[in-house]
């Protein structure tokens, strides 16, 4: 699927890209009122928090919204060693001179982009506090090292995502951070919608296969409590569908896309394969 940031492949381009009218809109199938909520939040420039399991469509949703709102999208994937310099910017050496380089957050604040901090809980709490002043009425970014602050561009918007799972019990966001956001809960789509998504994402997928895949996914998600850290995601179903359409046998496609990646436990794998076989192997 073509997105705004993929116009020229294999060429580096700036992280701030305004979507062009000629781009294909990222496909997204609304599950509820999330589009309306997001549009309202955008009108008021309120920061938004996307919660939900891996692979249920958070990122795609945001791509879709950014496109609809014609705003550039700047994505930062957060990780343990992410410092505030990585977000705000730092001095670099150039010859004997130093130059200041804006970090992605600063770029977004200046350009009026939507800044997306993916999996924010992974970042150290001390680096996430820099967003505090951006997420309340001040809408300001302080650049400590330069002794400056920037009032955010009027179109700037901050979006964070996180995935409440048991792995992050000790890594929850600080309540003071959390309460600055409008929260949108995501979950795996309903059967009907998930099937639509599969058919749209993977052209050539038969209706029957889509139906079977969705049913398989539903059942596979029931295993979550038995030691699967991540449930079978819609993304994984899309992968399985793609593999099928690339000519792979359905059972094999499910095995490589839905079973092998998510568990090393032979018994769980066997149970997952049972589900796959029940749906596909006749």
């Amino acid at each position, binding site marked *: 699927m073509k997105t705004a940031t993929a116009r020229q492949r294999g060429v580096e381009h700036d992280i701030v890209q305004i979507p062009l009218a000629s781009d294909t809109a990222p496909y997204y199938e609304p599950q509820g009122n999330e589009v309306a909520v997001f549009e309202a939040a955008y009108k008021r420039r309120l920061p938004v928090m996307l919660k939900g399991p891996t692979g249920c469509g958070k990122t795609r949703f945001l791509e879709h919204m950014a496109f609809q709102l014609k705003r550039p999208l700047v994505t930062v994937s957060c990780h343990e060693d992410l410092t505030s310099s990585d977000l705000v910017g730092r001095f670099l050496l150039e010859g004997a001179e130093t130059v200041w380089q804006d970090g992605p957050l600063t770029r977004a604040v200046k350009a009026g982009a939507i800044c997306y901090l993916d999996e924010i809980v992974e970042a150290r709490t001390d680096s996430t506090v820099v967003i505090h002043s951006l997420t309340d009425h001040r809408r300001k970014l302080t650049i400590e090292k330069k002794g400056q602050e920037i009032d955010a561009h009027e179109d700037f918007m901050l979006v964070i995502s996180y995935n409440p799972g048991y792995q992050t019990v000790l*890594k929850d966001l600080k309540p003071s951070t959390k309460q600055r956001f409008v929260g949108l809960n995501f979950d795996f789509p309903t059967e009907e919608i998930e099937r639509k998504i599969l058919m749209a994402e993977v052209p050539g997928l038969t209706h029957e296969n889509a139906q079977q895949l969705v049913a398989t996914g539903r059942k596979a998600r029931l295993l979550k409590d038995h030691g699967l850290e991540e449930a079978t995601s819609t993304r994984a179903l899309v992968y399985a569908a793609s593999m099928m359409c690339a000519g792979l046998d359905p059972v094999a496609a499910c095995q490589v896309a839905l079973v092998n990646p998510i568990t090393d436990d032979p018994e*769980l794998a066997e149970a997952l394969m049972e589900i796959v076989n029940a749906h596909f192997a006749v």
Partner: protein
Amino acid sequence: MSSPAIRTLLDAIRESNGELLSEIEGVLPVIRPHGEAATLDWINACRTLSDFERDAGRAFVRGSREAEKVSESVLPWTRQALSIMRWRHSSPAVEGFMRNLPRAFGSLGHAGEERWANIGLTWCARSIECGCAYFATPVLDVAGRGGGIAAIEALNTPAEELYESRKLQLATFLPGAIRVRNLLGVQAVLPWAMRGADIMQSGRTRGEAYFRLESEESLALLLENMQGYKLADRNRLLGILLEVWLGEGLELKESTWSPEKGRPFMEIDGESLYFPAVMGNREEAIISVLHAAGHMRHGTFDRTAMKQMFTDAKAEFPEDGPVSWSPIFARYGEDAMRFQLIFDMCEDLRIESRLQKQIPNYFQRLISNAEAARTRHPDSAEYYDLGIATARDALRASRGEPVLDARFAPLFEAGATLADAHRIACEIYAVAEQDASLPPVRDPEAFTAAFLPGRGPNSTRVAHPQDNPDENSQTQPGQQEENQPDEQGEDESESPQESETGDEQDGGEKQETAGYGDTSGAAKRAESRPDGTQQGRGPADKGIPYPEWDYRESRYKKNWSWVQEKRLGESNLSETQRLMKQYSNALKRLKKAIQSQKPTRMAPRVKQLDGDDMDLNAVIEFVAEKISGRSPVPTIYRRREQNQREISVILLADMSTSIMQHLPEGGGRLVDRIRAGVLLFAESMEEVGDNYAIAGFCSKYRDNVSYYNIKDFGESYNEDVRSQIGGLSGRLATRMGAAIRHATKHFERVESRRRLLLLLSDGRPEDYDDGGDRRYLHEDTRMAVKEAVAKGVHPFCITVDTMANQYLPQIFGAGHYLVLDQINSLPNKLPEIYLKLRK
């Protein structure tokens, strides 16, 4: 007609033994055609044998008629019988020999018979008891199904070997060996018997029980070597599959089936599913489990339907208590098996039509698996084939296609009940009785062979009717009872574990510390320990009061539960050492994993003034800022070193009575796994370097909640702590809320950014005084968790209660608990979970 020689001989016999003569004369006509010489030899043999031992002679004469008929000879077996006589006390051998002769000739042929007899003679030469046992065993049993003389020889080889090496008597060996051979094949006999001989040496009774296949170890060995799919090992998988397809709340138990009981089936009683240890193959096992669960879910035990059926059958239906199926079949007397087969087929079709809607391709799987089995029992093949045909029909019906056999069609409707199945079965039976389209079945083997793989008799157990036929209900009524609180533990004095629970109640009071409102730590407790002898229940040892949440009034009850902090009385160093040894490999692995994680785990402290490594980012920053005219602080080093204690954790173990239970899968008790888990946890914590404490809790009534401090924060992990872990045992009930509050209080003394309260539990919160209102303590625990969170403590619950999904989400919140469905994995999992949580 008789020759003079014969006549003389007979006359001689008449004089000595008139009785024998009349028997001889009865058989003589069939012997005579073999010629005079043979007849003479035969009569002589009669006489010799009779003179030797009267019984032997009589048995010889009586067996001769049949022997001659089958063998069409006289001399070979006459000589063989005479040679047995060489040994004293051999008359039982002769009797057995004669009894077996016709079969031996019939099934083994002349050459085979000779070999068979010779083997027996060799045994007689070894010991006449063995010889007697050999000849007494029916030759067809020894040869097995279609085995012939080769099978006899194959079985004889290990027998000889064991006799030579271990003096194992044939009488002990043979009956069991035949069964083992039939079940597992001849190669399994020798190892099985070797083990038996070992056991025999340690005790005769035990050994004999082993050889009779009655002892546990013998059956276990058999099961281990059985071909087929071992359900007991795949308990977890089957449980998962049940949950996936049919929802939570179905209970799987192992049945008492053992290999020689014939074909294994799943059994159901309206409360639980019972699986045999082994089934033919994986397909059959999985279909069976799903099928049985279908009965549980779709109304085979629905009280209304059962009642209707009993009324239709003009039988009385008991108002309460378990229900026996027998009145349903009793009407058919001798022909009950035929009716049962028809009835089971109808009910199975009804259930499976519903399963098909839940489990895609269920019928396809059932049918293809049933067709794969090529052999049919001749007496019940009609049933098997009808089973397949009707399953095909049900499959057609599920696709909306027309069915071929209209008789069964109503069963495919969604609204059909058990009573409908019974009615249709009666109709079909009435027709079958007339035209014998479905023949009567008398042989139990034919009966069991009539079921398609995956199906089975539905009424093998007494039924527990289900009152709530709600198919979607997650909890079956049966379970409610199963999960009854641990309060049965109150009469624990009768339990065999008593010796281990020495610290309960009064015994524990010795250790009881004087209550202290401030948690001033180990030092104070150490002080108070020596004078712990004070008796009585003064306010001082009432402990620390905590409020409790009453959901009915939506308010806290002040000073409601009282927690007494104690030291664990019992310790068991040898158990600790045993566990350390048992889990030494696991421990090694864990430590290795922890060490390999260390560099990343102990996040390098960046931007330090000194250190062993340059922090490249900081250096660039420093140089850059310096050049740009600022005067930065040279914090350009990084250091790998443990940060100040980042996490502190309390492992709080539920020490209620229920942990003393034996594990359903065998191999000891739950408490053994808990001890091992806590031990491995402590060992890995030492390696990790986090600040931790270990405690246990139990309760009896609200004013008697015991909190056992096994290892406090800052206390060293010494022999004393180790041996206390080894001595962990279960007592009393589970007032979780109070324990959580007390543990939360413990955290107040610790400086750390993150605080984790790891609860290790095996069941829901319960106490003797909760009046059966489960919700009360649930709600209280939920509030205690909320309070803890508010105080910056993260409670996380690890449980081995597979039903925990029903209540833990409400108490701890989604993602703050983990259900371990394999208890055996607990020891290894506990440290792993912690390491994962602390990342």
